């Protein structure tokens, strides 16, 4: 049998062609050792298990979380034979495997993004309450979707909900979630809020929502976001980057809209309040009118009293000055031929004169008249 003879270069090319056919893209799970980053861009490490170890190569941009020795990861990529440095596994994406590594990866990423200020409280925006239009990012076939829409429909009305259905776990999930966030942000009529949610699952199932790209997409959304991942106890970093966190999909629905039953009760209450307020205003005006009436009538009464008093005092003065009162004091009026006698010069012997006293009248015939000077 004749052996195929290659030059070294041809042999390397042939191996790579074989790799391309046999392993166009594969995932390898193993523990990271000898991790190092060269020139800030190139990443080298070994992936090992109890039986073997392979060299891996990638760029820092493909790392979805900070990697350290000892982490167990699932590396997605293809094998490659380099013409100078030999075999390496060229990685396109990595995911942490197992709770320990996920926890460690989450902690490292959290520390890094915290330092960048991505989770700062002052980045949180308020949301319109209730919103008019909702952009919903979840799997349209999931229990999370069913829970969210059930509670939303129970609580509120008139909402326009745009569902952008995405994979919520697995290798493709982060890109799909980012794509959906981008879609809504670039829309000419963006929704009022974005709801990003999924139900419970294992730490690996929920991982997509703690990947750096999803966290950054959530933090970078111009539309306010509410993120609800898993059950009460579950936690994802994109929740920390969102404007509002909800514990479950149902809880997200409870947070973003009021309960129509409560609002109906409030409206019934408002109806009473508004009638009561108008009644109060009427009472207030009626009281004011009564007060005006009282003031008006009391001012007229006091004016009449004043006039009466002044009339009384004038009447007594007049009375004091009347001739009758003067006669009472002992004076009398002398008349002759019905004319007042003002001087003794008018009197002659034999004249009949009238003497008017206060209580009687006398006619007197005069004897001798002796006039004496004053």
């Amino acid at each position, binding site marked *: 049998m004749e052996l195929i003879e290659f030059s070294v270069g041809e042999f390397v090319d042939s191996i790579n062609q074989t790799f391309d056919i046999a392993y166009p893209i594969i995932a390898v799970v193993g523990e990271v050792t000898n991790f190092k980053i060269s020139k800030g861009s190139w990443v080298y490490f070994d992936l090992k298990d109890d039986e073997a170890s392979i060299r891996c190569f990638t760029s820092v941009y493909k790392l979805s979380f900070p990697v350290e020795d000892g982490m167990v990861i699932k590396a997605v990529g293809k094998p490659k034979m380099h013409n100078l440095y030999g075999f390496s596994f060229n990685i396109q994406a990595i995911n942490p495997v197992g709770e320990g590594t996920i926890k460690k990866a989450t902690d490292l990423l959290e520390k890094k993004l915290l330092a960048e200020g991505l989770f700062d409280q002052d980045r949180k925006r308020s949301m*319109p*309450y*209730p919103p*008019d239009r909702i952009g919903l990012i979840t*799997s*349209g*076939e999931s229990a999370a979707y069913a829970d969210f*829409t059930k509670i*939303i*429909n129970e609580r*509120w*009305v*008139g*909402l*326009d*909900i*745009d*569902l*952008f*259905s*995405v*994979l919520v776990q697995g290798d493709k999930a982060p890109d799909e979630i980012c794509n959906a966030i981008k*879609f809504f942000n670039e829309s000419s009529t963006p929704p009022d809020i974005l709801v990003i949610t999924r139900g419970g699952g294992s730490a690996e199932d929920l991982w997509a929502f703690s990947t750096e790209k999803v966290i950054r997409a959530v933090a970078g959304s111009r539309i306010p976001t509410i993120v609800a991942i898993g059950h009460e106890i579950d936690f994802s970093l994109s929740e920390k980057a969102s404007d509002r966190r909800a514990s479950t999909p149902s809880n997200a629905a409870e947070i973003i809209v009021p309960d*129509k039953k409560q*609002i*109906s009760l409030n*409206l019934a209450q*408002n*109806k009473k*309040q*508004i*009638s009561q*307020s*108008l009644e*109060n*205003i*009427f009472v*207030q*005006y009626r009281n004011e009118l009564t007060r005006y009436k009282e003031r008006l009538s009391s001012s007229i009464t006091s004016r009449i009293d004043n006039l009466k008093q002044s009339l009384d005092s004038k009447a007594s003065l007049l009375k004091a000055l009347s001739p009758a009162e003067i006669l009472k004091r002992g004076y009398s009026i002398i008349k002759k031929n019905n004319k007042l006698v003002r001087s003794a010069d008018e009197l002659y012997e034999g004249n009949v004169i009238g003497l008017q006293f206060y209580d009687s009248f006398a006619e007197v015939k005069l004897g001798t008249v002796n006039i004496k000077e004053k």
Partner: protein
Amino acid sequence: MATKDKINYNQLQEELDGILSQLQEGRIDVDSAIIKYDRGQEIIKKLEDYLKNAENKINKINPVR
């Protein structure tokens, strides 16, 4: 609910709150109070009808997956 029937809930609720606080404060002439009262009742009616009759609309942007 068709878009044409759609009301701006927040705007109406805000207007109602304003009317309530003006009427409760009481420093308002009777004529304006009656106008406010009528408007308040009208808003309450609109909101009640909205809560009773409006529906949520779900629009699926891409094939569900």
